[in-house]
């Protein structure tokens, strides 16, 4: 467990100490605030647009953080950094889990910053309290990083360096449209991920909150799927030759 925390800690510290991360978060805030300028063009829908833009940009932020994981692992394997670490009494599974948790934490912190900024912008602009639905959706976006990170780990291990990020992006993109396969028991949700389960953006815009029980349940699903994908990744990784 200590090894996992050590790997995760070093991963998030390396990324979160970069000033460019906070500059990018600031840019996202500016983009969210720019939605206020669309009051005329949207015929008065700028409030809904601001909520939607904040959710959209937060999702993009989360996905970008996860995509960086697909660059990180192959890079460490290629440059021999991973083999140095793995030569120590550190299991391959622990290395993968540590990396995955590290990037989930990075994503959670960055997405939380984006969410807090959007709450402030909303509150200052409209003098209204933050809706529960909006809060829930930002939490759901953060929770969706768990299965996404596991998918990224799986593909970064199973696929070559150049293809892994592309396939990860495509899988994350299409994983929002898999609910049409919901009549395939176990395969749907068990093997084929459904990231649409985390998507209530439309409801958030109209301030329709979902039950907190659902949020907890979907988090559980995310964890179960992450265990599945990371175990599969670990199984593949254990059979892989490392330089």
């Amino acid at each position, binding site marked *: 467990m200590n090894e996992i925390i050590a790997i995760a800690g070093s991963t998030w510290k390396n990324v979160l100490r970069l000033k460019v991360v906070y500059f990018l978060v600031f840019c996202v805030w500016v983009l969210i605030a720019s939605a206020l300028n669309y009051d005329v063009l949207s015929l008065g829908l700028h409030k809904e647009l601001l909520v939607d833009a904040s959710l959209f940009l937060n999702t993009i932020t989360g996905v970008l953080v996860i995509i960086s994981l697909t660059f990180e692992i192959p890079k460490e394997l290629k440059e021999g950094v991973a083999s140095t670490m793995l030569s120590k009494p550190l299991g391959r599974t622990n290395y993968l889990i540590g990396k995955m948790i590290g990037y989930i934490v990075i994503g959670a912190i960055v997405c939380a910053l984006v969410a807090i900024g959007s709450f402030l912008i909303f509150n200052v602009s409209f003098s209204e309290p933050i809706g529960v639905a909006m809060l829930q959706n930002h939490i759901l976006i953060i929770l969706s990083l768990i299965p996404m990170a596991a998918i990224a780990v799986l593909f970064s291990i199973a696929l070559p360096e150049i293809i892994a990020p592309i396939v990860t992006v495509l899988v994350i993109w299409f994983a929002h449209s898999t609910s049409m396969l919901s009549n395939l028991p176990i395969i749907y949700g068990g093997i084929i991920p459904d990231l649409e389960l985390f998507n209530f953006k439309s409801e958030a815009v109209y301030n329709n909150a979902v039950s907190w029980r659902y949020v907890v349940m979907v988090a559980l699903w995310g964890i179960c799927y992450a265990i599945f994908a990371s*175990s599969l990744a670990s199984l593949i990784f254990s059979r892989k030759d490392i330089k």
Partner: protein
Amino acid sequence: MKNVIHIIIIIVSCLVAGILGGKLNTTQRELAPSKEAISGMPLGGFQKFISDMEWMLFVNYLGSLNTVDESNVDEVSRRLERLMSHDPNLGKIYQEGALMISIADPEKTVEILTKACNNPHLKSNSQIPFYAGFVMVQHMKPPKYKEAIPFFKMAVDRSGGGEGFNNYYASYYYRAKAKVWSDGKFDDRHALLHVLYDSWLGDTRDENYVGGGTMTLKIVFLTRYGTLKMSLKTINQLLMAINSLMRLFNVSSVIAIYAMLVLLHMAQVLSTAVVVALNLKFTEYASFAKKQFCQVLSSARLLDKNFPKNLKNNQ
């Protein structure tokens, strides 16, 4: 051994995730029923954001048009349908977008607005059913009064009769019912009186009845010599009888209204004031109906202005 543990973990987690995923999918459909109506196009879960962008492009596109007519109505409809497929809950599509094609293509407008009326997310929106009925009676040729009645009724019901109550809804509702009832055989005001009277009575035989409880309405003439009470039922029956007689003698039904005005005029000669007194459980609808009735009476009295003179001349 390690691999076996891995495989067991993979199988167990896959099973649990599969079962949970299936259940969550069902729960999500219950929590967000509109997801069923959203297009299956893979948009990475950004349907709402894309819909916002499409809405602004739609507004921009409309701004570039001088008018919506036969030359561009198909394009406007296509854009509207695309918007609906991304976010069927966006009320502006219907309230402002669909009405843009109401003159060029009223059938399509009603089709779009009917979909919106059936959308559970918009179930509290009273404007959409009103617009559907409005397009039916104002833009369709010939006007579809009968088909419009359920939409006006829906608008009245959804408005709840509170502060948001819009008199237009009830006005159109009663007038559409009057049109259906009269079927071109009676004067519009007479037909409206009949419909209002039926509503006040709480006629349960009328499936479109909007009043609540049993109501009796009486017009009380406060005269110098006492109180003359005349129930609306009596007035209406009298009106109907006169109208039938006039029709029997092949005379215009407008004359029936005039006949009733004679009665009212006679009462006014004696009265110092006319008060509409209600002995009843009033609903907001009935309250509105009362105003409507008073308006009908006022307009009838305007007609009546020269009536005694004409009567004398005729005599």
